């Protein structure tokens, strides 16, 4: 397949995953800050809820790397 198309795919994978994470974190983050303001002990749990959606962008990263390697981006793939 055209390496250019693959590169676009890799970009989309991480870009869209980033958007998804952003949307998810917006809600979780706002709620976490609210909870921490009420009770500082919630900070730890807040971080967890806040950081949970970040896995989504990591998925995007992994797929992007696999695609990039697949098109020979690191020359070793």
């Amino acid at each position, binding site marked *: 397949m055209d390496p250019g198309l693959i590169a676009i795919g890799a970009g989309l994978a991480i870009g869209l995953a980033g958007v998804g994470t952003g949307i998810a974190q917006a809600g979780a983050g706002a709620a976490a800050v609210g909870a921490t303001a009420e009770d500082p002990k919630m900070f730890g749990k807040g971080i967890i809820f806040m950081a949970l959606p970040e896995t989504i962008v990591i998925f995007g990263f992994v797929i992007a790397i696999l695609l990039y390697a697949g098109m020979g981006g690191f*020359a070793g793939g």
Partner: protein
Amino acid sequence: MIKPERMSRIAIVGPRKKLDVAIRSLYELNLFHIVDYVSEDPEVKIGVPLPQANEISQKLLRLRSIARALHLDNYKPNKKVTVGEIERTTAQAVVTLDLEVTKKIENRLTLNSRIRELTTQNDALEIFREIGLPLDLFLDYETLNVYTGVSQESIDERMKALGAPLEFLEISHGAGFAFSAFCKKSDAGSVQEILNTSGYQELKPPYKSGAAEEHILANTQEIEKLQKTLTNEESAIEALREKYAALILASEEHYSIEIQQAEAPLRVATTLNSFAIDGWVPISSADSVRRTMAEKVGDDVAVEMLPVPKHEEDEQAPVKLRNPRFAKPFELFVELMSTPLYREVDPTIFVFAVFPLFFGLMIGDFGYGACLMLAGFVMWKKLGKDSEGWRKLGLIVLAGGLFAALFGLLLFHDAFGLPFHPVLDERGVPVLGGLSWETTMGIYIPLGEAPMEKLVDVKDLLAISVLAAWIHMSVGLILGFRNELSHSRKHAATKVFWLVILFGLFAQILFMAKGSPLRDTLFMTFCSSFAGMVIPFSGLNLSIVALSLILIGVAGFFALHGKGAMMELMEILSLLSNVISYTRIAAIGVAKGAMALAFNYIVVTYLFAGGNIFLIIAGAFVLVLLQLLVFALGSLSAGIQALRLNYVEFFLKFYTGGGVSFEPLGYKRKYSEKSEV
């Protein structure tokens, strides 16, 4: 080390007249976590505060109000005051201060409000001065109405258009206009209507006679005089503050400690002639409690260990974390999440082992690592002087920075995002123009080719991440097994099956991954014995052994939980996503490294290359800013992500939390010190 300090429940029983001494001795010991007595028996009641409690709380009330009046919240006195001095001098000082401070603060209020009043008057008078009529002309007409005021918009034209006999004068004032209007009472209605729609603000002359200038002059003189008095009062208050601050803070602290002790009987069971204090003590210190009680209180007080059933101990005993000194700072992260339960493993030592490692891998840069160590050192030594939290955080940052510097120096060979030697991709083409300390800066660092290049060997970094995932989560599951063992065999066995599945997933990922020397080494280490047993499936190698391990785990769930196993099955997907989640170690490392190199590339190629001196100076400035940005963003995200891997992927395998922290009766003196009598 792995479990919190073991506790033993102790009851101290004695004659009621010794309650005071017993409580004081316990406070001195700082070892006794009291359990509040809840009154159930009509014969055994909650104790009453010691007789001096009332007097102390009144003293405290006055001390605190003086402290507030003198703004002592952030005052740092330069000496400590002894308890003897507090007891000798506080009573007199409070009387003096009560009088003086209250009087001076009232004076200050009166002065301030009078100055404000005069200033407002002058503002108004200024308008009358500009209009230029004596003040008495604005008042007391029988047939005329007078309007004076200020408005946002000009009303000159609308007034003139009215056509009624009218004396109207408008001048511009500040951002708007000031005006005066004299009209017949019969025309007042229409004038009023224009004013109402113009959003005007009415002004009355502050004096009934005289010229505005004279009043302004007199007012200004009075304001000056008042201001002088105010400055005097302020410096008098400041002098009082300087003189008494140390004493007030020390007394406030001392009497707070006293009131705690005086009110402690409210947590104790008492009868007509005896008392019983119930609480927890670390087993290792039980003897010293007994000895102190016998020495300081006397032989008629008995200290008894109470036998507590194990499940009750597990539920009620307070938690005192017990870690070696070097791991202590990391208790901060565990407490931030939640205090462990008494029966649980305390994960501090594991966080200590793993956090700096993950953090260091993500930063992986000698320059940033060294800066972090410096920052950590400052936090520890400077900010940490007054705050335990900063001290711990400083040590954590110091450890993280150390690992970051080590990985940067020995593994990735780069500093400030610039590699030691030009980075070549595997076709031999230099990455981003081949920038490096050697070629760009002319500094040769005698370390050969980097064992791992962040921007080229991404797959090796991914392999490290997956290995970290397997080891870290396996430890988590083993800890979970240990936590559950005394609790429920079934749940403990579930953890074993999870371990089997985790290894299956790990092996299967190794089978599917390709093109990384590190992956090959891992594969040979863990999977060589069953490397041949694969089913090719649309280009992927599915390992029979790895998949069988996962199936064994699933079968185990069904054997243990019957239908409930369906829920556990869903969790296999989350375990897989946990494994992938560790690739954030690679992701942050690559992203941060690429960002730094890109910034360096932009500055070096576009700003430094031309030889234009202004561009070079601007470039140096931009470079520092961009480096700071990468440093701040990188450290923050690496810290949060390393913490998250501990909290989410690791803790959730075994941790419940929600324990009660061990808070012994005791106190810390900051401003006062005990006098030896």
